[in-house]
């Protein structure tokens, strides 16, 4: 009995945090649709997110596409079907790799940045000061970030997909010496519009998820410099885990309907 209570009480904070996060999300959705919308701040956040996340996204997706091309070239050439390398690569990138890896990079760049910024503001009592000056912090700081995450992550995903295809091209054609025309010709053979749209919708959901988690972590940070570090750490871990967990359900929902 002792151990059962112990186990349950270990998971109790988790459920509490989930409930608080849901409440936080609903409050900020309500704040989107009530007047005083800070559109300039939203554009600012979008621009910052694009600029800051672009370099990590390019640097991660190009090697990833190269590795997938390398492995699949080796496996497919066993069957004598090395032309299929690029078809597998583009399907894998559009559906899985680009949304997941771009979201992981957005979580580690923009999400961690958000948590650090909001946490520092909370710890130095700037958020309380905003409330005293009757500026709603939800509308001024949270809503622009949520919308930026929701709209920018899909765009970054498309950029990352093309980077991955380029990385695969560099390895398959320039390094391993397979045929350039076959690579480009087979690129979109197995791809249909549902794959592209599914990837983009996935990325939008992940972006919203990341921003909700990191804004919540930063907004309720406490305990000085160590607390800010803890909030940043938690935001990255929780975002990455929830991306990878939610990804399975989204894959089954979007692509698994005809199996």
């Amino acid at each position, binding site marked *: 009995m002792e151990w059962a209570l112990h186990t349950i009480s270990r998971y109790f904070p988790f459920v509490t945090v989930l409930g608080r996060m849901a409440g936080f999300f609903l409050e900020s959705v309500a704040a989107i649709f009530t007047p005083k919308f800070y559109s300039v701040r939203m554009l600012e956040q979008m621009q910052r997110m694009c600029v800051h996340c672009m370099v990590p996204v390019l640097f991660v997706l190009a*090697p990833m596409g190269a590795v997938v091309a*390398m492995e699949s070239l080796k496996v497919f050439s066993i069957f004598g079907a090395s032309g299929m390398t690029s078809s597998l690569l583009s399907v894998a990138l559009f559906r899985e790799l680009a949304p997941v890896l771009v979201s992981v990079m957005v979580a580690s760049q923009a999400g961690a940045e958000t948590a*650090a*910024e909001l946490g520092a503001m909370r710890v130095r009592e700037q958020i309380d000061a905003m409330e005293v000056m009757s500026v709603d912090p939800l509308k001024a700081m949270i809503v622009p970030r949520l919308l930026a995450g929701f709209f920018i992550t899909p765009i970054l995903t498309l950029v990352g997909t093309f980077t991955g295809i380029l990385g695969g091209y560099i390895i398959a054609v320039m390094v391993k010496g397979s045929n350039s025309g076959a690579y480009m010709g087979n690129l979109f053979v197995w791809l249909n519009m549902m794959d592209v749209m599914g990837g983009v919708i996935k990325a939008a959901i992940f972006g919203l998820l990341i921003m909700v988690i990191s804004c919540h972590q930063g907004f309720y940070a406490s305990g000085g*410099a160590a607390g800010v570090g803890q909030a940043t750490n938690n935001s990255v*871990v929780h975002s990455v885990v929830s991306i990878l967990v939610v990804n399975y359900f989204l894959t089954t929902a979007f*692509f698994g309907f005809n199996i």
Partner: protein
Amino acid sequence: MEVVNVQVLGLFGYLFAEVGRYAYFVAETFRNLFYKKFYFLNLIDEMNTIGSRSLLVLAPVSVFVGMNLCVEGFIFFKKFGAQNLVGMFVAVANIRELSPLIAGLITGAKAGTQMAARIATMRITQQVDAMEVIGVNPYAYMIIPRVIGAILVMPFLVVVAYFVSTLSAYLVAVYQLGLNGDAFMNLVFANITMQDMYKGMIKGAVFGGIIATVSCYSGYTASGGARGVGAATNLAVVRMSTAVVFFNIFLTEWMFM
């Protein structure tokens, strides 16, 4: 044109300066490996922290990664009627690439950011300076145990990721997709060798070294107040995930091609 030049030069200058400082940091770490005192208890402590904390996150995540991989492979192979071959896809993708990579990313996100945040907090509250003043070598005391701990622990996390994700892929193949379980496992075992698993563990060890050195470097060079701790953590996680994915390509080329 002038502005562009200045910005580009500034960017590259920053990049090279950071890489140089990082190389100096790594060299200093190696030099202090042979310091007269080796803090063995710190090493055990760090191994415990890295392993146990990351394991609790890695195991649930690996379940979903394996499930997702199996579903994706099934959908792709069904297009040419080869859906029974999904075991091969799962084996190759999982053992060679995905498990080491996911173990690296999760350990980086969990243990790496924690290292960065803790060391940055110590730097900002001037505990590192205090340590130097009382004659304790900060490299030997807190950097080396973390680096060696990550290198020693990561291969075993990779093994956990192998088993958990292959098992969950098996469960999905049998109960969600309705494949034959024995045929699936036979294909998995036919397409991996012990060599592949050792190579994946070596990948994991290299990733552990990258993660620990990069995050300790980011924390060690932090500056500014509470904002600086957050910025160091942020930089650490971005740098190490980029570095892990980037070095993965060389490791794959070296080991599996």
